[in-house]
């Protein structure tokens, strides 16, 4: 594992140094959300469209065999030869035999990710059959001897100058780096190939069971050539592309072009049901003949996924790549780092795991920081980070944790006294090394993950030792509140914990801090260790519920989410399941709770006169808890002048193991955040997540020392008179 990790890190730093790539992806990630929004302007309600696609796909996967049988029967009835391929090798064998039998020497291909997935072209070339990719991007990438780096724009990582070089080499003449000229040169060269080919291989964006049709969306027109000119047409289509009815295609077409390329419709949308006539030259004369059409229905792991309770979700993917376009990691490093596989990004890690086996998954899954941005755009509404977490859990079940982590989790983190003792020791030991950079999820540094990083700045006195001093006696409290601080507030930001006390006590609430509370378990489950997480969950439920609270307040969205997820985690446990469920109902995130209480008391109004503040939406706050208005309202109620930063809801770049292990990658993401904060001219950067505070404070220290990082609770507390 060590060596693999080191390679991936090396690859990442190479990509980060690739100016062409950084520039292209940077510009693209800026332009994409705007273009996409524009494309959806006349489409009606976007959520309704996404729900319709999701539901249609869910209904299909539930009865995928039936749909596939019907698709096969209808296509066969119309004269297509349908072949079901279990693996990539089955496809290759079938095709090589077919080529031999029919005397096929030259193949033209339009885009087919299923064929890339099984590395088909290389195999055909080895078998002596000339195979040409005709999609311009795919052709360029093939000439470069590379793999596509994006599902929709395969050559986005290359500049015109690089393309000109590859073209010059292939066409054996000097081709200037002029885009229009190069496109024409490609047209001329590939036109010959189309006209000479004996076979066309295409992919498909959908396959319709009702009439055995396949549908293809393209812009260049190459798929129309591939399916029209040669006398044999072979379609390679994965099971996940099947849909029951012709009308279901409309559900896909409403969203696919808009999401993929921000077009209302691609230049060509073609549906083919059964073989159609082709023109064939016989004895020097053109005659009309019926085409030969084959459909290869590819499994290669898909059916296993279809029958997996969780992973059948991947059938909702229409390969639009919008999840890549918004992913803070992908848009920094591009697709090649994900192993140079056909499918990149978070969804790529999942598909790769299913289509090529777990071995490949281990590395790429770490490149998902769980920011959930992709889930807000995915037209199939796939929970990519959720599936990645599930894969991690299974991976750990199958292979176990790396030794050091296992030791740490089982022996240290799950033993609260020892764990907290070590954190205190760290407070003493850290002095000579302390710096602005901290680690988001504390338990990780104990696992030796912080080799190249500074230790987190542990406070001299953790919150748990300040409770006596900050607890006010409330006579007739409105509510009895238990505060769950999480490790970070407890040991790194105890002052924020004090602020929470102050704000709640000011609302005439009794606040308690149970000593027995421990790590919420997030960093542990994030690495797939379910057993340790369960232990922590039970410990926390016991400690919190012992106090009989009306409400459990958490001032960190990640911890909030963890506590709420205990119910799911322990659902098979007859004793703890119901307890977890009862507790989950009491858990409230700090800002939303306080905003509600302020509202009741008429205190949630804009006041003014305070400092300029900009607010950072933590990923989990906004996209898991769906809380984004309340913290802003609170800031304005506290008199702040709120200035929105660009991409306020974009990840700050540090998430668990990722920020530590891939520091070089986490830093540019942080840098963007700091720049956006700088542009607002605000004096204070506020947020409501202790994890983000660690990261952003680290960045501000170094790059923008004039701006301070504060939790919303701190700002509220400052307004309260003693």
């Amino acid at each position, binding site marked *: 594992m060590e060596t693999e990790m080191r390679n991936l890190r090396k690859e990442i730093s190479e990509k980060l140094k690739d100016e062409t790539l950084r520039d292209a992806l940077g510009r693209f990630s800026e332009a994409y959300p705007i273009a996409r929004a524009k494309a959806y302007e006349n489409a009606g309600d976007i959520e309704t469209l996404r729900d319709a696609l999701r539901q249609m796909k869910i209904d299909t996967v539930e009865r995928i065999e039936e749909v596939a049988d019907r698709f096969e029967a209808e296509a066969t009835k119309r004269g297509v030869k349908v072949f079901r391929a279990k693996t990539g090798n089955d496809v290759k064998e079938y095709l090589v035999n077919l080529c031999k039998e029919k005397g096929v020497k030259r193949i033209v291909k339009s885009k087919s990710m299923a064929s890339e997935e099984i590395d088909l072209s290389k195999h055909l070339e080895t078998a002596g059959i000339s195979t040409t990719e005709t999609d311009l991007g795919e052709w360029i990438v093939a000439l470069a001897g590379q793999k596509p780096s994006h599902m929709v724009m395969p050559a986005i990582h290359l500049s015109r100058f690089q393309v000109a070089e590859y073209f010059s080499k292939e066409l054996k003449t000097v081709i200037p780096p002029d885009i229009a000229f190069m496109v024409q040169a490609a047209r001329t060269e590939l036109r010959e190939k189309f006209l000479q080919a004996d076979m066309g291989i295409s992919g498909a964006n959908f396959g319709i069971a009702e009439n055995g049709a396949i549908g293809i969306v393209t*812009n260049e027109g190459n798929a129309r050539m591939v399916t029209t000119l040669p006398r044999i047409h072979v379609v390679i289509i994965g099971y996940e592309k099947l849909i029951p009815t012709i009308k279901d295609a409309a559900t896909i077409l409403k969203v696919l072009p808009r999401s993929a390329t921000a077009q209302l419709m691609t230049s060509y949308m073609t549906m083919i049901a059964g073989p159609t006539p082709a023109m064939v030259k016989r004895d020097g004369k053109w005659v*009309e003949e019926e085409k030969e059409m084959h459909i290869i229905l590819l499994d290669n792991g898909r059916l296993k996924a279809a029958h997996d309770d969780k992973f059948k979700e991947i059938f909702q993917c229409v390969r639009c790549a919008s999840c890549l376009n918004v992913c803070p990691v992908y848009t920094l490093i591009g697709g090649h780092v994900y192993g140079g596989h056909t499918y990149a990004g978070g969804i790529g890690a999942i598909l790769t795991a299913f289509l090529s086996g777990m071995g490949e998954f281990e590395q790429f899954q770490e490149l998902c920081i769980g920011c959930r941005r992709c889930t807000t755009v995915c037209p199939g509404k796939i929970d990519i980070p959720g599936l990645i977490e599930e894969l991690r859990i299974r991976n750990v079940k199958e292979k176990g944790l790396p030794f050091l982590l296992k030791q740490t989790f089982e022996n240290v983190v799950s033993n609260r006294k020892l764990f907290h003792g070590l954190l205190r020791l760290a407070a003493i030991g850290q002095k000579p090394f302390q710096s602005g950079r901290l680690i988001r999820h504390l338990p990780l540094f104990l696992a030796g993950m912080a080799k190249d990083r500074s230790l987190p700045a542990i406070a001299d006195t953790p919150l748990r030792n300040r409770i006596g001093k900050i607890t006010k006696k409330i006579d007739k409290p409105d509510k009895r509140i238990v505060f769950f601080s999480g490790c970070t507030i407890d040991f790194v930001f105890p002052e924020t914990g004090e602020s929470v006390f102050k704000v709640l006590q000011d609302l005439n609430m009794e606040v308690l801090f149970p000593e027995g509370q421990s790590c919420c378990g997030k960093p542990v489950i994030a690495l797939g260790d379910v057993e340790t997480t369960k232990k922590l969950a039970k410990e926390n439920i016991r400690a919190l519920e012992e106090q009989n609270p009306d409400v459990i307040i958490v001032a960190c969205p990640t911890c909030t989410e963890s506590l709420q997820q205990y119910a799911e985690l322990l659902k098979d446990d007859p004793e703890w399941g119901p307890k977890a469920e009862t507790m989950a109902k009491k858990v409230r995130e700090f800002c939303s709770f306080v905003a509600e209480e302020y509202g009741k008391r008429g205190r949630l109004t804009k006041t003014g006169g305070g400092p300029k503040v900009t607010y950072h939406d933590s990923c989990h706050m906004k996209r898991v808890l769906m809380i984004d208005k309340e913290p802003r309202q609170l800031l304005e109620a506290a008199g702040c002048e709120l200035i929105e930063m660009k991409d306020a809801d974009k990840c700050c770049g540090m998430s668990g193991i990722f920020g530590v292990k891939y520091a070089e990658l986490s830093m540019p993401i942080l840098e963007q955040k700091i720049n956006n904060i700088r542009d607002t001219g605000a004096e204070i950067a506020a947020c409501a997540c202790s994890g983000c505070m660690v990261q952003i404070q680290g960045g501000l220290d170094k790059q923008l020392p004039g701006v301070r990082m504060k939790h919303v609770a701190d700002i509220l507390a400052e307004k309260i008179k003693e």
Partner: protein
Amino acid sequence: MEITHEIWKRHFPAENSGAHLFPEFEMRAKAVSGEVFRVPAAAEAREALIRLVDAVQARKAVVVESPLQEAAGITAALRSRGVTVYTEAADIAAHADTADIGISGVEFGIAETGSVFQDGYDIATRLVTILPPLHVVFLQSAHIVPGITEAFDIISQSFDRGYVGFITGPSRTADIERVLTIGVHGPSRFAIIAVDEEPKGGDA
């Protein structure tokens, strides 16, 4: 076997379609570099086509007939202009690659996207639409449906087998540095001549 081209009209909605949708269709088609010429009747349709032919100095055309084209006497007009015209499948197969212009009829347009729907079961139609650098289509301007969904209401009832699809503007790519470039494999120009008057016999 009935192909879509022969039966789609039975399923074309009398309501929720029509020339009132044309302005939106035209706006969308132009937004994707389609050229749109709306004309009142056959004579003007012929003129519009001749202007296009002159502009590109076309010498050779491949043509698949449609009632609108016949009504306008397109083929004869081209020939009288000195353009060599091929209309038979075998000739089209031999000449589409080197023709300057391809001409065909389409079934209906979609306002939401500026697309036209065409049945391409006929091989000659497909060659004409994809190989020459300029593709001109004839469309009845009342044959417009509001959106993709309505288009599929028709298609789902009339597409049993064959080769059908939408064409939306000319062929394009953004595969090099995401710079939009028109005319990769397919035509670099796509023109729609939309005729208000129905051809004699009332059936386009």
